[in-house]
């Protein structure tokens, strides 16, 4: 972070990537819609409208994308689901990053036996089949958004820790770290102020690729009924509802499904764009 040169160059490269910029704009739009949309549309997500049950899109006044079997507004519920999915994805990614960066930086900087033990723990957790253990955690702790967050974050930090450790191993040999040691800085200060800020580039790239993965895991569990529970909407349980009624009301499947696909699609392209921008020799 001391040298703005490469960072700014990377930003400029990212800005010329039209696909990634378009996807970033779309992501921001989706985020804003999820945040303020439901309030603007004036329906509650659990409000029932018995006059218009299972209405097709544009068929009922006030319900732009139609309603479900109980007369709940589909657009409002989809935006709510989007909000839940985004909130869980961002929170789980943040927790994963905090844990992974700390773990990896400490292991990589200290080396030796500490490093060996810490990374062995990561290796063992890595070998576990993740989705199945997330299911075990939700069975053990009960089904709630908080459990889901813990279960997803419990595995999300592993790759971050590995990436960060690799970077920290290289960084600790650099002159500015030696200078800090000579200057009498404590180990904690060196890790926090000299090591971590210098390895954030790859971490940011990985984070943008982690977010869509987390969104997919969350929706996957909610689809199976193990994640977010009704009446709270999430993209996953909306898709499950839609799949149950697609014969008579296909829009109930297509609207939340399309929303999820768009979200993951955009996240992937923004992540790819960032990676290319930060790592120009690769492309």
């Amino acid at each position, binding site marked *: 972070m001391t040298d703005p040169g490469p960072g700014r160059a990377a930003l400029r490269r990212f800005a010329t990537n039209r696909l990634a910029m378009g996807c970033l704009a779309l992501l921001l739009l989706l985020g804003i819609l999820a945040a303020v949309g439901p309030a603007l549309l004036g329906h509650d997500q659990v409000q029932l409208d018995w006059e218009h049950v299972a209405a097709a899109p544009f068929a009922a006044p006030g319900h732009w994308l139609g309603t479900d079997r109980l007369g709940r507004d589909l657009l409002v519920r989809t935006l709510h689901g989007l909000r839940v999915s985004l909130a869980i994805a961002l929170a789980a990614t943040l927790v994963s990053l905090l844990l992974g960066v700390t773990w990896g930086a400490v292991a990589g900087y200290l080396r030796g036996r500490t490093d060996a033990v810490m990374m062995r723990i990561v290796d063992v957790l890595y070998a576990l*089949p993740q989705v199945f*253990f997330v299911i075990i955690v939700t069975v053990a702790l009960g089904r709630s958004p908080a459990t889901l967050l813990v279960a997803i974050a419990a595995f999300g930090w592993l790759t971050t820790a590995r990436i960060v450790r690799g970077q920290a191993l290289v960084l600790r040999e650099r002159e500015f770290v030696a200078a800090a040691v000579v200057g009498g800085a404590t180990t904690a200060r060196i890790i926090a102020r000299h090591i971590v800020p210098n390895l954030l580039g790859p971490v940011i790239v990985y984070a943008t690729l982690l977010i869509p993965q987390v969104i997919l895991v969350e929706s996957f569990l909610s689809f199976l009924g193990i994640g977010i529970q009704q009446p709270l909407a999430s993209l996953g349980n909306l898709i499950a509802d839609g799949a149950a009624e697609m014969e008579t009301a*296909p829009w109930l499947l297509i609207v939340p*499904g399309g929303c999820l696909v768009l979200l993951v699609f955009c996240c992937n392209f923004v992540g790819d764009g960032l990676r290319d921008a930060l790592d120009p020799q690769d492309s």
Partner: protein
Amino acid sequence: MTALLLRRLLGAIPTLAAIIAIAFLMTRLAPGGPFDEEQALPAEIRANLEAAYGLDRPLPVQFGRYLAGLARGDFGPSFKFRDFTVTELIRGGLPVSLVLGGSALLVALLVGLPAGAWAALRRDRWPDRAIMAVAAAGIAVPVFVIAPLLVLGFGIRLGWLPVAGWESGRYRDLILPVVALALPVAAQLSRLCRGSLLEVLRAPWIRAARARGLPERRIVLAHALPAALVPVVSYLGPAIAALLSGSLVVETLFGLPGMGRYLVEGALNRDYTLVMGMVIVYAALMITLNLAADLACTWLDPRIRRGAR
């Protein structure tokens, strides 16, 4: 090669032990239990039930009993499907899941690899652009969206294929589930195959083959493709993980009597022994298949194959 195989097999044992221990602890330390119903059971009945299933014993004793059972192939009783043991459910579900997952992997390989190779050979022309556009979509569309859409299209609207169900030997029942499961994996495989083949085609030894005047067909098929498959084969590990987790969705949605559906049912009903048994079998499957993929990868790379002692 044999030494490598042995070392890997030994390395898998602590992993499996960790999986069993963590699965056991997680489920036993959890608040609530399989006998929590809408109406609280009378204390005596509850105590009797717990005694019958050995749940009143201290935790280490329970763990010891569970391990002893596992060693005999006994995964304990199911709390949800009370007439069956978990072992019986596994025995019934495993073949279904294996047929489903195996067919899906085969389809993904047969579609993904040629598509990726074709895209690489027609780089930046229309086949490449079309295949890569489909692949990008295939990666972003998860199994639980594509599967209902396939049912809607081919099962309900067109009425060509059965929507759900399973009769052994009726391959028509399998078409939609297998396609839904295979699509995302095929998409990822085609992207990997394209990228890796493009890289290999730039290698000096491919130029050398061209300089020797070999026909292009032979260069691609006999020289470039085997080398390009190395990163593709190392993706097989994650691909297997994707297939196994995807099979939960597909089995639930299509009503196939596989392990995945029992796992989901068990998770919804907090049936500890069922969930644990299924997770242990899935984990063992995953470890074995990953091992096989690793060995295939080693075998494909002549540098490793010849160097291996």
